[in-house]
């Protein structure tokens, strides 16, 4: 793999929401890149800023939100420098997006066929008839039974799983190079989730596209992604390839998250917990944002924000434990000591 062939590179992205009282920094200096043809998973709990990150890439942030800084380099062009009409040519054509709620993400008053063909008509200037023909092929591709009949259906006549397939058909209609999937299976049952994930995976291979998968489900990440970025309170706290991340998680948050997850495939005595709760975006802690919940936190953590640094084994971690400045127990091993640290 050539290291330079990243389809997209996000540098120091900052997106804020401006309320009457304050600026809420939903995404606060996020950087990552997606190697061509690969899948990057962005995981985080609610309020971590993962969805806002994805909408920022599409430049679909609505009032009172605003991208306040950073770069989004897509194929060596900075998307933040593009005009709105240039951006429109990219959306749905070179970069596409699917969303969490298949029930509400399709327009209820247009047929499935209308909604898929619109993409062809905008980006490829096809006639209505040609566009419908292409839409039909697309419905077949995403595995919808009796596609000819479904073309004339309205969204409410389809099940959740079928609607998500239609969403995928719309997104992939113009064979984009990058697909952003924002919690695409969260609203679906597990057996349907398995279908949709497999479909995205197969189509990724077939079309050779790159995928950014936003999710809160660590299982989904482990099964579908090549690289993982863990977000917490508007920042990336850890980035690694999927093997490394799950085998040797470094950041206390990642470790805590993994050990608080009840699993169906192995027995666990008691779940480790991360104490407390996600800080309010209007009231962020000063130093490391995880410090108030972190069992290892020292004064340094509470005062200064660590940077996202490269480690030897390929992880990038935003944690003082791994720096020269660390003022706590020098012998500490986050992964092994997490349980004992929380109970004390």
């Amino acid at each position: 793999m050539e290291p330079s062939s990243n389809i997209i590179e996000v540098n120091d992205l900052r997106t804020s929401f401006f309320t009457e009282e304050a600026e809420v920094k939903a995404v606060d200096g996020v950087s990552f890149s997606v190697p061509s043809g690969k899948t990057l998973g962005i995981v985080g709990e609610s309020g971590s800023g993962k969805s806002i990150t994805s909408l920022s890439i599409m430049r679909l942030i609505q009032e009172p939100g605003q991208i306040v800084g950073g770069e989004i380099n897509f194929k060596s062009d900075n998307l933040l420098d593009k005009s709105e009409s240039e951006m429109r040519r990219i959306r749905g054509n070179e970069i596409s997006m699917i969303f969490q709620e298949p029930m509400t993400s399709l327009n209820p008053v247009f047929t499935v066929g209308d909604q898929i063909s619109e993409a062809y008509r905008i980006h490829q200037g096809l006639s209505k008839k040609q566009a419908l023909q292409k839409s039909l092929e697309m419905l077949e591709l995403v595995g919808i039974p009796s596609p000819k009949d479904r073309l004339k259906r309205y969204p409410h006549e389809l099940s959740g799983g079928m609607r998500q397939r239609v969403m995928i058909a719309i997104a992939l209609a113009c064979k984009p190079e990058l697909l952003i999937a924002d919690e695409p299976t969260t609203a679906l049952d597990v057996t349907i989730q398995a279908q949709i994930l497999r479909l995205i995976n197969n189509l990724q291979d077939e079309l050779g596209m790159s995928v950014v998968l936003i999710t809160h489900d660590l299982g989904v990440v482990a099964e579908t992604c090549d690289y993982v970025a863990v977000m917490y309170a508007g920042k990336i706290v850890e980035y690694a390839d999927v093997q490394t991340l799950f085998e040797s998680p470094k950041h206390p948050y990642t470790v805590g998250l993994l050990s608080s997850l009840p699993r169906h495939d192995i027995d666990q005595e008691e779940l480790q917990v991360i104490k407390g709760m996600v800080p309010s975006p209007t009231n962020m802690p000063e130093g490391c944002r995880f410090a108030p919940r972190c069992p290892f936190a020292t004064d340094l953590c509470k005062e200064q924000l660590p940077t996202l640094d490269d480690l030897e084994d390929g992880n990038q971690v935003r944690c003082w434990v791994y720096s020269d400045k660390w003022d706590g127990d020098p012998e500490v091993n986050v992964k092994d000591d997490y349980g004992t640290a929380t109970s004390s």
Partner: protein
Amino acid sequence: MAETSVKTQQAETKPPSPQLENMKKVYKKLKKNKTAMVGGILILFFIIVSIIGPVLTPFDPDAQDYTNRLASPNADNWFGTDHHGRDIFTRIIHGTSITLYIGFSSVLLGSVAGTVIGIVSGYYGKKIDAILMRSMDVLLAFPGILLALAIVSILGGSLQNVIIAVAVFSIPVFARIVRGSTLAVKKLEYVDAVRALGASDFRIIFRHILPNIMSPIIVQATLRMATAILAASGLSFLGLGAQPPTPEWGAILSQGRNYMWDDPHYALFPGLAIVVVVLAFNLFGDGLRDALDPKTKG
């Protein structure tokens, strides 16, 4: 959604009652809403005028002065005089309380009856619901003012009958809104939770449903004041409501109509008074709706 945690502010001091707390919040939101404040101040102004206005006016609303008939607005008679030489400004001031009284009592009657019907219908459902809602449909089949007209034509034209008529045509409006809200609240898990605790229907309705549907009722009642005042003045204008020489605004307007050609002020001012008071309730109702709507951020 971001989870918000609120910092401990007052661990020791005794907390205010929930109702007070809530009202404070609504008030804070209202204060930010300029239109609502304008509406609220206007309403307050009209209420004050209706109480102390009659004392302050220099003229007797019924004092006739044929030497000073149909005078145009001037320093003494700000709004001019009518065909009996009565001061129109004084008459409008005296009419304020009548207007507010009609609006308030008809809305009160209509909202109480409508709320009872709506809650019973929404909470118990099934047959009761079907029967009550079909009856409401029948009432709604008569365009508002026509229903009021029919009622007044039966009972005869008087202030009291206008109130009854306007109240009756408000009932189905409230019943429908309350029924819809009741159905929505009834589905919420906290209602199931108190049912699961063994709460009686009475408790569920009065402690858990009614307080949580008050917002739409209050908003509707405020907006309905506007409608009621318009309807009542319309009936008086048609000669079927308050009868002369009562200084009711619609009635004054009705008489002023005969002198439009030469004395436009006669019909202008009572109409303006109606516009302003109706506008006040509409403004305030809109503001209340925004303030009470949990969806709008405060």
